[in-house]
């Protein structure tokens, strides 16, 4: 008797759990389907301007390459000037007639 009651309790608990899981899964699938349908309709109506994307892509790409080239050239000019100035100072130090520098 006790065993039968326990058994039926287990069955009913299992049934309730299964119903909750099934219900949740069905509801979730329904929600997902409706969201998907909404998204699809949105994408169908959307018009993406390909020309604008192309122009932006090319501007960024060549802007980056141009930036690197110009920055490198400017830095090199400055460094070359600094190296020349330092070499000039070293040569003046070698000259015994030049006064000591601070």
């Amino acid at each position, binding site marked *: 008797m006790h065993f039968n009651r326990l058994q039926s309790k287990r069955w009913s608990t299992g049934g309730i759990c299964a119903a909750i899981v099934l219900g949740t899964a069905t509801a979730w699938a329904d929600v997902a389907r409706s969201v998907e349908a909404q998204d699809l309709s949105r*994408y169908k109506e*959307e018009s*993406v301007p*390909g*020309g604008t*994307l*192309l122009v*932006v*892509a*090319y501007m*960024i*790409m060549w802007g*980056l*390459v141009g*930036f*690197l*080239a110009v920055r*490198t*050239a400017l*830095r*090199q000019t400055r*460094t*070359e000037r*600094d*190296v020349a100035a*330092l*070499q000039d*100072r*070293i*040569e003046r*130090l*070698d000259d015994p007639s030049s006064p*000591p*520098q601070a």
Partner: protein
Amino acid sequence: MTHQPLHSPAPLNHPKRLIGGLVLGTALVIAALGWVFLATPADENLGIVQKIFYFHVGTAFGMLLCLCAASGAALIDLMAPNDAIDAAGQACTEVGMIFALAVLTSGPLWARKSWGTWWTWEPRLTLTLLVLLISMAVLALRQLAAEPQTGRKIANALAVLAGPVAYLIHIAVQKWGGTHPQVIQGGGIQSATMRIAFWGSVAALLVLGFSLVALRVRGIRLEQKLQACKLELSARELMRARRS
């Protein structure tokens, strides 16, 4: 009387050669752009936005080559430190980073039209982002390290990683799939006009990239020479003060 300098770095490339390389690269890019926009038809499905492809893939090739070269140079410099190799590795990392930025901005702009989204966390895109972050970290370590030699070692150890990751980017689609298309490995380009546009753009970008690396190597070697001159000046001033 002239003294031998205490530090005498190897002679630098003549700027005229570098300017010649840059002019050639720019001329090739202009020719390739002309071919892409004037002679090549727009794609039937994607329309004009497909023309991003020609330079997107070219910059990706440049990025992979630069970062593999940077990785090799970093490994060599870790085993046997050499200023010239280090300069080449650093220049390759910088140009590779610029190309990676170009890939990661042109790609999403194209994806917006063809996939309907700017970004997905699929293997090839994620690995490309990772390689960009690695190259940024390498350059930041070099700039921010309090002790330049330690910074150089740590940055080189990190730069070695860029090579294997670049290889993984190349094989990512075959290995793990994802949404990224495989045009070259997966059948190639059918139209002859498009093929010329594609390989012309790749060649132009590689010449331009190589010229940029050479220009940057010269800049880094000049900076190394500047540091050597500063050291030499300090040493000579000290010797002179002791004598007097």
